[in-house]
């Protein structure tokens, strides 16, 4: 199971710009490396990240083999209403992880 750390402010004023951070544990094997016995180590990376705010997609990222292990993604959005922010990662070998955080907007 992948460990996930997300940071969303618990409270925000309406219209305020908030920082959202998402960190996930993943070794991000590039697919370009060889094992000690010379075989190619197959690629195993996270390929996509999506963030939804009350169901509406507000951020999307594609990830590639050059991304370091344990990808950290940080971005900004405007706090519009109270609700849930959903995070979703997907990758090679059926990798999938989700996390959510509540935000209350006044």
């Amino acid at each position, binding site marked *: 199971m992948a*460990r996930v*750390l997300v*940071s969303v402010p618990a409270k925000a004023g309406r219209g305020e710009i908030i920082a959202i*951070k998402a*960190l996930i*544990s993943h070794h991000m094997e590039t697919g370009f490396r060889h094992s000690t016995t010379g075989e190619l180590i197959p690629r195993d990376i996270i390929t996509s990240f999506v963030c939804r705010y009350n169901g509406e997609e507000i951020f999307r990222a594609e990830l590639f083999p050059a991304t370091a292990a*344990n990808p*950290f993604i940080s971005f900004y959005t405007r706090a519009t209403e109270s609700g849930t922010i959903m995070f979703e990662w997907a990758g090679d070998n059926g990798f999938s992880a989700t996390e959510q955080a509540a935000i209350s907007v006044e």
Partner: protein
Amino acid sequence: MRAPHQLLATAIVTVTLAGVASPIAAGEIAADQRRSGYDLMSHETQAMQDDDASNPGMLSVLDGDALWHLKAGMADKACADCHGEASTSMKGIAARYPAFDAERGRALDLTQRINLCRSERQNTTSLPYESKELLALSAYVARQSRGLPITDPATDERLRAAIDAGRQTFNRRQGQLNLACAQCHDDNWDKQLAGNSVTQGQVTGYPLYRLEWQGIGSLQRRMRNCMIGMRAQPFDYGAPEFVDLELFMKWRSRGLRIETPAVRP
């Protein structure tokens, strides 16, 4: 015109004075000069360490939290069943380890203590050195000491022989490059090596997340890196020489605050 013996005397005095004035090979770093590697790294890396939401070492601490509460072994006990909440019971532990174990008559480091608990209390197998689980548990335990000053291991008289042994290893030239740890970390810590600060080798943040490793690693892994770098034969994980060295490093870092899990370039 002076007599030749007078000239000679003048020359000797001059040489002696020059000897006094030139900087003496440093030796121990004074208390007010001791600086964690944190102070020598970039603002970006510092920011990464400071924010728990961006510090990738925290992922390992989360793993450790889960393992702390996981029942294991024939005894079907979790760490938490004996030690309770780590935030109170493990506070300050990392600041005073390696510690003397009276039963075995020698110093044990934190990972060895964790594995002894596993074999003696939980009745289960030891975790291999540098395994994800052992790093996670030690990161979780050490995290509870964050902000606390490292205690002086020399206050325990039984540890003094081991500290001295560690000091000798630290000051002994080894490997094909014929280098001693002290030549970089005591005498040239303020300089650069391959784009990075040499650093004083203060052991404030272990286990730590190293960007070069793309993962978390122990102090022994770091020391093995250094030994390979100076083309010496690295000690095995868990070797008594490493525990002595760890003790000496803790003695060098006494008073500095624990940062676990630290981030380093």
